[in-house]
């Protein structure tokens, strides 16, 4: 051991393992394929069934390339571009935004159980959006609702952050208890808003609250896209700093990281991503929990791959979940939020049990 100090070079050669890189490539290809198939299937299946070739043809014509595959009927073309495509695009964006938000939150809290839905950021954003809808005027518009959702999301994230941290660490039990409190408070606020709202606003809020991608419009998609792309890009740029945060904030600080600044930026990112998603799609829980966790199991915890994988994985999950929500019951549409909770709930149980077993208690 000591002689190695004297001879600086010539230590056992170790290339940064190529195995994880191969795995990452395989996973990304698989996700891309799933995404492409999901997009085409989701656009094609529904009350009006459109063939695969027609979907592709319509897509190409929309961007100015006319092919023989383009749908012959104008109604089909319009239905795809007015209804199906914006909805598919919204599902991609919302899934990606929620998954990235989850991954960022877990990095900042140093805890794999942190998730916007679980700790109440989503319901905070929902309360903000609902307030926007009820108050009418500018705030009820597309940008207004998104801004209100963002404000609600920031408020909830800050609250969780301030309440759930003690001595620079976030313990699982405190985090979840804080989540309960924030969710309860935001839920009560939401109930109050529904109570005072007129019947039209009420109905709008109730259905939207269940989580649905129904009726997504291009202008809404555009707003979500701007927020989601910007925030995800910043999150990816911060990936290596998130890695350092895993060492604990003190050690991360010793390595030159401005921990407090990173945290504040990240809280804003989480709120922007969650707010953008929640504003138009309602509360869709557990995406931010399930997706980063699954990606971490395959690719490991390094955040550059984790965030990229979560972005793709979240998009894949919601495209398929939305397709399922639309088609599982004939003649009706399941709320997608209900569906993700149905899968996410049991998964959360499993994570909890594992965290408990590993940490030997509720620390």
């Amino acid at each position, binding site marked *: 051991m000591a002689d190695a100090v004297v001879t600086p070079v010539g230590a056992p050669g170790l290339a940064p393992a190529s195995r994880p890189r191969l795995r990452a490539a395989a996973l990304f290809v698989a996700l891309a394929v799933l995404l492409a198939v999901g997009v085409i299937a989701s656009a094609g299946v529904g009350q009006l069934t459109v063939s695969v070739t027609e979907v592709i043809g319509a897509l190409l014509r929309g961007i100015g390339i006319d092919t023989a595959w383009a749908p012959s009927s104008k109604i089909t073309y319009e239905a795809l571009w007015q209804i199906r495509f914006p909805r598919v695009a919204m599902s991609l964006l919302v899934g990606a935004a929620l998954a990235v938000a989850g991954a960022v939150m877990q990095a900042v809290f140093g*805890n794999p159980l942190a998730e916007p839905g679980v700790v109440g950021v989503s319901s905070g954003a929902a309360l903000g959006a609902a307030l926007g809808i009820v108050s009418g005027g500018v705030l009820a518009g597309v940008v207004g609702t998104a801004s209100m959702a963002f404000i609600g999301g920031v408020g909830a994230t800050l609250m969780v952050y301030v309440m759930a941290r003690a001595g620079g660490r976030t313990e699982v039990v405190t985090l979840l208890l804080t989540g309960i409190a924030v969710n309860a408070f935001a839920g009560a606020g939401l109930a109050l808003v529904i109570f005072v709202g007129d019947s039209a606003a009420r109905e709008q809020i109730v259905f939207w609250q269940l989580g649905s991608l129904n009726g997504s419009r291009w202008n809404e998609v555009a707003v979500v896209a701007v927020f989601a792309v910007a925030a995800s890009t910043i999150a990816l740029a911060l990936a290596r700093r998130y890695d350092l945060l*895993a060492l604990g904030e003190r050690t991360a600080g010793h390595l030159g990281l401005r921990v407090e600044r990173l945290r504040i930026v990240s809280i804003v990112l989480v709120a922007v991503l969650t707010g953008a998603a929640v504003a138009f799609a309602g509360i869709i829980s557990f995406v931010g929990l399930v997706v980063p966790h699954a990606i971490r199991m395959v690719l490991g*915890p390094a955040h550059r791959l984790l965030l990229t994988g979560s972005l793709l994985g979240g998009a894949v999950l919601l495209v398929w979940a939305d397709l399922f929500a639309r088609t599982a019951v004939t003649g009706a549409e399941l709320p997608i939020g209900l569906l993700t909770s149905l899968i996410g709930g049991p998964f959360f149980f499993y994570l909890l049990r594992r965290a408990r077993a590993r940490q030997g208690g509720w620390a």
Partner: protein
Amino acid sequence: MTGALSLAYHAESVGVRIGPATLVEDVSIDVAHGELVALVGPNGAGKSTLLSVLAGDRSPSSGTVAFDDRDVRDWTPGDLARRRAVLAQDNQVAFPFRVWEVVEMGRAPWQGLSEADGDEEAIAQALATCDVAHLTERTFTSLSGGERARVSLARVLAQRTRAVLLDEPTAALDLKHQEDVLRVARSLAHDGVAVAVVLHDLSLAAAYADRIAVMERGRIAALGSPADVLTPALIERVYGLPVHVLDGPDGTPLVLPRR
């Protein structure tokens, strides 16, 4: 020996108070490049607090700490990280990072600089030095306490700084690895690094340190060469335990409780 070497740390009458509690009081200590200083003392004597003040984590309530001729609080976090590395007492990693990745994190301060070209070599050397090269593909969370401590030390070495602060680096280690870690610390000092180490084992401190600072209730009770500092009277007073101080076979003092 301090006179001939450049000073890394120059702390003057440092005090740390939290509310009514005084953790460190009127401590003055220098650490020169090329010197290994051991901080010893009973639990709660203020060793770790003093180390965190030197690290720049904590502002002293009174007194000053100059690091590389500038107040330690005036350095930016990045500049500080390229000049001093710290091994904390408690080393956890929140997610199952691989050992190689954990040690690579020690290179973060050099990211984007020309020194980053030496990343691979610095990591490989640190892994070899700490005897953990065989663990590179394991996840940190799967390691034993001793392995974690050595990997964390490797991360500190990979940072390649001219000052190193180690808070109880031997706490979780077996006999051999305790010696190994201090031998590493010793050879760092030999290469011109300023090293401050918090230790509990007085004989270990005596064997490897150039100077020992004995802390007692926040103050420095004695500071000097092992032979000067480790007297039965002082140790009995500070620890409240009668001891024998014997001459070891290699001439370094051995401290044994009187039983």
